[in-house]
């Protein structure tokens, strides 16, 4: 039976490059994907593009492609990536320039377009946001980006037209894998059973090492060999939609039913209805089987007709967030941190500082699980060190700075022995989402060639 080998080359925008190069060199790959867009990445990239129309793609695109292009030319591996971010056109052009510099010939680079609907966002101002349930026009902040999550069709089209490198903006992560599978196996775009299986393949490969032992280790419970050198995944997908996940023998990490199960359920919400622009996938009947060490067979995903809507992420200038921290140590560390907190809270009230929301944590005590953490009052001496963290949301930057200053002032005005003050004030671009009809969007592909 025909099969395709696809490598997962990145699990996030800044991921390591060398494990990706390793699977390209030794993994007998047909394709490698690089998934590099988190929820708000495009909104930030859009701001870079506004400042410079030739920018707005992933900042590591050049670094990665300089290393990747020579190997993919030699090994005949096609590259699919969403590193185009807010500017796939310039991204594709940059890849062409790198190819020229490296003396690479006969390379066709595609840019998949159509996800950016910022110019027509006003047409959707009466649409309801999924997060807040209000109208998009009522959002509290300037809108700076609007990107549809496209499906696999643009990638499929690029490959049908001979592309070796496909650069997209916002597409759903699994589509980076579904595109090549549609093209290679000639699956129909409405064969939802196969699309469900392809979605699972993409879902397993899009987070890099998260399926090969990364983000899995718990010493004494779930030990992972050579995690420092964890290998990236290789997915073998068969024409009937069966999937095998494996890794290189020499690489660290491991592929077991456990690592695969964690990744199958990762961020999917309802396992019987994982909605993407390509299909409503159903992973609820999936089975996994270790067929050899570090080789797991995954079968049983299926799917139903897609919803007919594209989820669209809208980036808007929301607020500023200040984070200010100070540490206390030794016996009574927690009591000193609590006194410091009391001072900061009273100072903020006393000087009438303006903020929308304030959150105070004791790092080492309750910063992760909030007050669900064990109550240490009265036995604070069990804490060797405590870090007070004051986080505030403000509308203006200056207001954030003022809150930070109150933490810094604890140096000379607060409890004894406070140290290590760090303050950050950052502008926050947030995301709101709307659903827009598929018919509104036209995907198209442009090409660069050397």
């Amino acid at each position, binding site marked *: 039976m025909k099969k395709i080998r696809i490598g997962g080359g990145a699990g996030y925008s800044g991921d390591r490059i060398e494990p990706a190069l390793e699977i390209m060199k030794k993994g007998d790959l047909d394709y490698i994907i690089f998934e590099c867009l988190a929820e708000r990445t495009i909104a930030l990239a859009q701001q870079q593009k506004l400042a410079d129309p030739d920018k707005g793609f992933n900042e590591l695109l050049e670094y990665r492609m300089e290393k990747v292009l020579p190997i993919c030319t030699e090994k005949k591996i096609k590259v699919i990536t969403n590193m185009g971010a807010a500017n796939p056109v310039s991204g594709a052009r940059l890849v062409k320039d790198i190819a020229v510099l490296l003396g690479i010939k006969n390379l066709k680079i595609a840019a998949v377009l159509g996800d950016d609907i910022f110019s027509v966002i006003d047409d959707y101002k009466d649409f309801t946001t999924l997060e807040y349930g209000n109208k998009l026009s009522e959002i509290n902040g300037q809108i700076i980006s609007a990107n549809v999550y496209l499906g696999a069709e643009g990638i499929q089209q690029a490959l049908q037209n001979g592309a070796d490198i496909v650069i997209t903006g916002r597409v759903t992560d699994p589509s980076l894998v579904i595109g090549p599978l549609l093209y290679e196996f000639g699956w129909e775009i409405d064969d939802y059973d196969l699309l469900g299986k392809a979605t699972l393949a993409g879902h397993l490969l899009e987070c890099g090492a998260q399926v090969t032992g990364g983000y899995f280790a718990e010493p004494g419970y779930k030990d992972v060999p050579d995690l420092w050198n964890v290998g990236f995944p290789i997915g073998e997908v068969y024409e009937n939609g069966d999937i095998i996940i494996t890794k290189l023998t020499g690489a660290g990490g491991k592929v077991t039913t456990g690592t695969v199960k*964690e990744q199958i359920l990762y961020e999917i919400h309802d*396992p019987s209805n994982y909605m993407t622009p390509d299909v409503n996938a159903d992973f*609820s009947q999936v089975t996994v089987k270790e067929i050899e060490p570090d080789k797991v067979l995954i079968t049983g995903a299926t799917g139903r007709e897609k919803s007919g809507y594209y989820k669209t992420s809208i980036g808007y200038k*929301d607020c500023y967030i200040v984070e200010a921290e100070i540490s206390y140590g030794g016996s009574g560390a927690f009591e000193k941190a609590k006194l410091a907190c009391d001072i900061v809270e009273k100072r903020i009230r006393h000087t009438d500082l303006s903020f929308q*929301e304030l*959150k105070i944590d004791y790092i080492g005590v309750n*910063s992760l*699980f909030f007050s669900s953490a064990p109550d240490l009052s009265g036995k604070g001496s069990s804490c060797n060190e405590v870090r007070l963290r004051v986080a505030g949301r403000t509308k203006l930057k200056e207001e954030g700075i003022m809150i930070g200053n109150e933490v810094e002032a604890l140096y000379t005005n607060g409890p004894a022995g406070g140290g290590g003050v760090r303050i950050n004030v950052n502008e*926050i671009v947030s995301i709101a989402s709307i659903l827009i009809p598929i018919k509104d969007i036209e995907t198209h592909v442009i090409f660069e060639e050397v």
Partner: protein
Amino acid sequence: MKLREIAHSRTGDKGNISNISLIVYNMDDYELVKEQITAIKVEEWFQNVVKGEVIRYEIPSLGALNFVMTNALGGGVTRSLSLDRHGKSLSSFLLEIELTT
């Protein structure tokens, strides 16, 4: 015995929703986990974290449960004031639940 002894877990996030999987090491323990780690139990356990509801999905073929917790991340990854904005560490908190035997 803590849940950690018989099951493992991973947290993911989308917007203001936290998604925590719970997977038994040994299929023989699935019924016990299913019986004790109910949506209500999880909602109580995370009462200081989760401001919305908890929905539980069962995936028997994987020996797994999947918890979807709404309004759980202080406004979501992009605007939360939490130190752990993604709520990535919440899986470790779930595994602290004490099982009754």
